[in-house]
């Protein structure tokens, strides 16, 4: 039964991709409807996975020889992320029905989105390291292709290529880990790896652990690999909502959460994860405070919130990180889709040209506000509970400087969330009113996500128990929902956090009276806006590679004799090696 559910959840989107591509671009309405049908079907089927979480292998496709078996395991962690991917994927496709109504080449768009949904579900449900790498690469490809969807726009193409290069460099770490696991343990199975990780020599295990950390950091756009995500905002907004907010960037967090039991004992690993999370959370929050492009600000906030999840894993709170993943996926998708509705209406992404849109777009304003509440971590929305759990765990298990940093980050988050909402929806209208409110399909997705933002915290108990039962290596303790809620409300850290958040909100509201603080910081503005120096580092790396390639060009003379000399020289070297080896 579980095997069928898994096959359907992966297979329905993939079948949809083939159908939409086959229908051809001459029937755009049919393409919209087909994509919607398949994505919605996949989303609904994925709910069935909740019934069967277990750590056993439910589906195994034997491949010959060195590839091991391609297995699928439906445990709590995988089921949670699979449902998130399938459901938010469905909602993003529904949103696309209206958002992309006047675009061309829909076949390519929908096929890639559906391919991505299937691959993401496969990534989290698989039990073979090699198959995980394969799905990882498919998601990276879909992300690249969708960022560069408007392939006549050089910025989009550049953004796509950058995303591809940075995430693929991380992917090498993943492949290395899979191969090392095979050489030492003889198997690619994740369950085997988790159970027998302590038998691998410590040096090799460290290499695998830090390699996976690098792969996760690259995929989830953490420091120092975070430069690709803001540039990836050239993608159509539903793609940004799905891939770069709710699913693909979570793959890094998933990776660390799944392999946590194997790596937690390695000296320095947890500390490294905490540092990566802390730096990303703070630096991205600072950059979000000065961003003027709506989607870029949301991208920075994604990096920041993923930093919170990394921090949680670094302090040992795997459940809290996954719970925040759920909340973040929901409210971030909501924010992105709301931003999409705004951009669709106004035609620009620059927040300085928006303002006072709340009057023309009341529905969007309300839903966006709910998403922002989740982001800032205010008590009504699900973000509050998950963020408090993380901070609490950080205070009890993590280093003090980490906790303080994350606390400040929470304040900054509140600041820039309010800034975004105020700049877009409140204040004086900048231009004559021409914004229309969200179209019907958009409204549906926004409504569902807003509803979820207000209610997913109630699933905490269920999720916890599902994960406890089906992840034996992780030693989790799941409590009921009510226990979690009371825990959150009575912890002292909650008070601190709410205080800091209120401080952040107040800072924005009365920012004119803080001018004495802001003015001396003005010169830093350009430095922050240009990515805090990371873009410069990227550029230097690229220049270095180009210089090396140009220097090596001299060996390509194109002359026959020169090339033959290379051949004979190579033969001589080979023979020399053989002679000395013998």
């Amino acid at each position, binding site marked *: 039964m579980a095997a069928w559910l898994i096959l359907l959840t992966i297979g329905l989107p993939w079948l949809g991709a083939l159908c939409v591509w086959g229908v051809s671009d001459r029937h755009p309405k049919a393409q919209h409807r087909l994509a919607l049908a398949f994505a919605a079907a996949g989303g609904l089927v994925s709910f069935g996975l909740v019934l069967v979480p277990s750590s056993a292998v439910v589906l195994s496709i034997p491949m010959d020889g060195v590839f091991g078996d391609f297995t699928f395991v439906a445990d709590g962690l995988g089921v949670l992320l699979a449902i998130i991917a399938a459901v938010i994927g469905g909602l993003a496709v529904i949103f696309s029905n209206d958002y992309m109504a006047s675009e061309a080449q829909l076949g390519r768009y929908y096929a890639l989105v559906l391919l991505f949904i299937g691959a993401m579900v496969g990534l989290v449900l698989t039990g073979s390291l090699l198959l995980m790498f394969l799905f990882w690469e498919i998601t990276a490809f879909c992300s690249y292709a969708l960022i560069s969807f408007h392939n006549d726009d050089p910025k989009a193409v550049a953004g796509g290529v950058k995303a591809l290069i940075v995430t693929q460099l991380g992917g090498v770490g993943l492949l290395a880990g899979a191969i090392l696991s095979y050489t030492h343990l003889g198997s690619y199975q994740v369950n085997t790896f988790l159970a027998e990780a302590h038998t691998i020599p410590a040096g090799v295990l460290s290499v695998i652990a830090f390699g996976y950390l690098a792969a996760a950091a690259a995929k989830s756009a953490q420091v120092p690999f975070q430069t690709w995500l803001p540039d990836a905002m050239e993608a159509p907004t539903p793609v940004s909502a799905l891939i770069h907010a709710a699913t693909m960037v979570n793959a890094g967090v998933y990776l660390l959460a799944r392999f946590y039991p194997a790596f937690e004992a390695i000296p320095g690993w947890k500390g490294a994860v905490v540092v990566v999370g802390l730096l990303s959370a703070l630096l991205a929050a600072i950059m979000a405070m000065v961003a003027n492009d709506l989607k870029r600000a949301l991208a920075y906030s994604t990096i920041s919130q993923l930093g919170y999840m990394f921090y949680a894993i670094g302090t040992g709170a795997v459940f809290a990180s996954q719970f925040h993943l759920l909340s973040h996926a929901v409210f971030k998708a909501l924010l992105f889709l709301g931003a999409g509705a705004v951009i669709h209406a106004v035609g620009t992404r620059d927040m300085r040209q928006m303002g006072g849109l709340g009057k023309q777009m009341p529905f969007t304003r309300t839903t966006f506000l709910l998403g922002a509440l989740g982001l800032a971590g205010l008590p009504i929305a699900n973000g509050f509970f998950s963020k408090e759990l993380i901070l609490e765990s950080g205070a009890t298990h993590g280093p003090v400087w980490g906790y303080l940093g994350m606390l400040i980050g929470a304040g900054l988050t509140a600041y820039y969330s309010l800034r975004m909402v105020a700049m877009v929806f409140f204040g004086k209208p900048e231009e004559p009113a021409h914004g229309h409110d969200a179209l019907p399909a958009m409204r549906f997705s926004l409504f569902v996500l807003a509803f979820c933002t207000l209610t997913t915290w109630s699933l905490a108990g269920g999720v916890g128990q599902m994960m406890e039962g089906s992840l034996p290596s992780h030693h989790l303790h799941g409590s009921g929902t009510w226990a979690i809620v009371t825990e959150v409300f009575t912890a002292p850290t909650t008070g601190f956090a709410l205080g800091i958040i209120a401080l952040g909100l107040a800072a924005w509201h009365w920012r004119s009276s803080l001018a004495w603080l802001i003015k001396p910081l003005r010169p830093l503005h350009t430095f922050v806006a240009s990515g805090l120096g990371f873009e410069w580092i990227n550029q230097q790396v690229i220049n270095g590679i180009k210089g090396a390639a140009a220097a090596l060009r001299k060996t390509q003379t194109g*002359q026959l004799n020169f090339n033959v000399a290379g051949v004979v020289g190579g033969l001589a070297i080979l023979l020399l090696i053989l002679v000395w080896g013998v």
Partner: protein
Amino acid sequence: MNLSPLHIVLVGVLGLLGVGLYGLLVSRNLIKVLVALQILVKAALLGFILAGSASQQIAVSQSLALTVIVADTVVAVIGMALAVQIKRRLGTLDVGMLSSLKE
């Protein structure tokens, strides 16, 4: 080490190999390059027949050598045609000038 006549032939194989490689390294005329290629292939043929003679499988080695001869002749034909066309279009058979694959 027993020095049988076959070892002399083996030396011959290596010698032809060396001459052919030297020809490829040093020739500037395209047709000379083709000559050097032919010498290399003759070295290979000799090697085949030598191996067949030494291991009592002359029939099999002759079949293989036949295939090699056919292939080599086709290569010579095409090479000649290429040389003629290059001379017609580009006016030169100098290998040093024929380097437009450089970039």
